[in-house]
């Protein structure tokens, strides 16, 4: 790695004692000796293992659940169903007033994705829990499912989630989050070329080497300590408190040493049910996702579809950009309405475009609920935007890097969401990339600066 201190040296004070110094990591000695304690390294005598009975169907009504055989299985201590969960219907962003509550801790009457949790089995050993889980009988009436976002948005599509009433998240702005800036149609009318293209991604897994999980120990004083690898301690504690209808003071969360997160451990899935199990059994409980659960049950990065329509002038100026983004939330909201909204704020990318129209939708389908992942709301958008930039450059016969210089935002430029640009550095990154990659651009671009307009 090379630190290029010559850029922005005028606005930066170097020579600090600790900041800017490559100090050794204080956690690394624990890592290399195997002594760092992750949540699953805590073992308690008498600890129970929780295994989840999951839906084999993408969409089905539950006619009945029979746990009697499972309860009789040797080593089984408790079997939990929806009626055991005090506040079974929840949504995690309710903590920042983003509702409605639309998801169940354990399925109640219906399952909306293949893999949805239906019954939790607690047993003395992992093996006994697995065997008992296989004995739980659930009678399903299979319902039509919808997997394609466009299909889901059509009239008459199977309704994925009754708590929403339609297959998209309803923002205060309506069916999508909107950004309107300038007059996009006038921009298209003025443009020398119009290019409309569609981009698509597939769901992506965080794949941390440590799977999601927790170990809960009753403290013996009506309090419960939850050792967890959550990415957000109080967010998880407060959501657990709501779901369990338990005062937060009864909960003690310990974490902070996590085997990789990447956004995959902010969904508050394992902790509430494990605490409930510990409460109802009086025993320590561990609930740790198998790798298969981590891959297919835990939320992925949402699949997204992005449609970009641009109006561009022969000289490279983009004069109008219209973006429609679709985020495949799967069956439940989790963090997806937030992610779709983040996309609305991010478009039209780091470029100054006078006429912008953005619509971003959060769409429900019968698949594993998606949620946060490293850069969500932006990562796939950047793929679409930057491939589109390449196509625009080729359309008008311009160097792709030069096209970006022409449109790059600079200090003071008004963004589509009506914030003036501050602290821009896109131009300098491109100048340095031009040098490092031996990708020459015209001298006027190398002379540009983010500090002010024009050369």
């Amino acid at each position, binding site marked *: 790695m090379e630190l290029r201190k010559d850029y922005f040296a005028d606005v930066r004070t170097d020579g600090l004692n600790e900041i800017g110094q490559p100090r050794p990591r204080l956690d690394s000695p624990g890592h290399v000796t195997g002594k760092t304690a992750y949540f699953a390294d805590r073992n308690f005598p008498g600890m129970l293992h929780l295994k989840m009975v999951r839906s084999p169907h993408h969409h089905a009504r539950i006619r009945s659940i029979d746990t009697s055989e499972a309860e009789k299985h040797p080593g089984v201590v408790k079997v939990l169903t929806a009626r055991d969960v005090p506040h079974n219907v929840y949504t995690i962003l309710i903590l920042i007033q983003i509702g409605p509550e639309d998801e169940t801790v354990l399925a109640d009457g219906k399952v909306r994705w293949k893999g949805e949790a239906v019954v939790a089995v607690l047993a003395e050993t992992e093996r006994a829990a697995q065997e008992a889980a296989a004995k739980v009988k659930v009678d399903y009436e299979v319902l039509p499912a919808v997997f394609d976002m466009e299909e889901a948005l059509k009239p008459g599509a199977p309704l994925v989630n009754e708590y929403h009433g339609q297959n998209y998240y309803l923002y205060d702005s309506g069916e999508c989050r909107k950004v309107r800036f300038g007059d996009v149609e006038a921009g298209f009318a003025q443009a020398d070329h119009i290019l409309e293209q569609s981009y698509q991604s597939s769901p992506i897994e965080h794949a941390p080497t440590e799977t999601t999980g927790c170990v809960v120990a009753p403290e013996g004083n009506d309090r419960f300590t939850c050792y967890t690898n959550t990415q957000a301690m109080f967010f998880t504690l407060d959501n657990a408190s709501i779901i369990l209808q338990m005062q937060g003071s009864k909960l003690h969360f310990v974490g902070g040493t996590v085997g990789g997160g990447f956004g995959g451990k902010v969904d508050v899935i394992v902790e509430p049910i494990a605490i409930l199990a510990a409460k109802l059994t009086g025993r320590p409980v561990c609930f740790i996702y*198998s790798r298969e659960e981590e891959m297919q049950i835990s939320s992925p990065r949402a699949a997204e579809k992005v449609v970009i329509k641009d109006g561009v002038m022969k000289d490279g100026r983009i004069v109008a950009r219209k973006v429609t983004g679709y985020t495949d939330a799967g069956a439940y909201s989790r963090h997806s309405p937030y992610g779709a909204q983040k996309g609305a704020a991010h478009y039209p990318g780091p470029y100054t475009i006078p006429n912008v129209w953005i619509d971003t939708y959060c769409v429900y389908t019968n698949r594993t609920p998606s949620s946060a992942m490293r850069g969500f709301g932006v990562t796939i958008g950047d793929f679409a935007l930057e491939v589109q930039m390449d196509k625009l450059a080729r359309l008008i016969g311009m160097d792709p890097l030069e096209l970006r210089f022409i449109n790059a935002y600079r200090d003071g430029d008004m963004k589509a969401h009506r914030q003036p640009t501050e602290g821009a550095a896109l131009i300098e990154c491109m100048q340095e990339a031009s040098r490092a990659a031996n990708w020459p651009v015209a001298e006027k671009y190398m002379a540009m600066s983010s500090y002010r307009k024009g050369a």
Partner: protein
Amino acid sequence: MSLALQTFSTVKDASAALQAAGARYLGGGTLVVRAANEGDVSLSSLVRVTDPSLSRIAVSGGKARLGASVTMAAVARHPELNALSPAARAVGGPAIRNMATVGGNLFAPAPYGDFTVALLALDAIVVTEDGEMPIETFLTGRNASRAVVTAVAFPLPAAESFRFRKVSRVKPKGVSVLSIAALLQRTSDGVVTSARIAFGCMADRPMRAKAAEKALLGCKLTSKEIAPALAAAGAGTSPITDPIASAWYRAEVLPVHLGRLLVG
């Protein structure tokens, strides 16, 4: 019920124990212990055999006999099995190769079982406690097989006559998009006089490429002359679709990779 491990010193005793419902043979553990860990509750006991002859590699008179418990690592490092080393190294990473056995590989469903693809091209004999059979016969009936495999035996190929190629997305260790093994006898001027070619991932288990083999007879290994063999490569295949690749993709690139194996 917990999972019980039963250890026997002879295959015969183990074989008797394997008649019980829920009993499975434990080789290197890469298939059955994984299944148990993943919650396969149909498994209730694991049966293993400590007979050291199962781990023996015997090479003599141009023939090799590998005990069923011989690991991929043992094959890979054996000086007289150089021709098979690429196929053994194609299995897993170093730790898996220290565990995965010749016997286990015979049962590995696609996309696994790359070593068996090599054995199929070598026309190996599979030895069970009930007797011997050609590997093709064994593979056809393997799902119903209850007999314990004790060894595989095959004539050692001359290094230049045996070729193996595994295509994977992830390097150096990834599961197969496909694998190809070819045993080719050629005249001194390079004309193919006999060919045995086996494919992995072109069906649910390793399979012979008989049409391609036939088309190769009498050819020199040039792009032009092998063209009919490549055109015939897909005959009778039914490639798997899995997270690694679709059947369509596997079918499309099969002739490409076969061509590179033959000419490259």
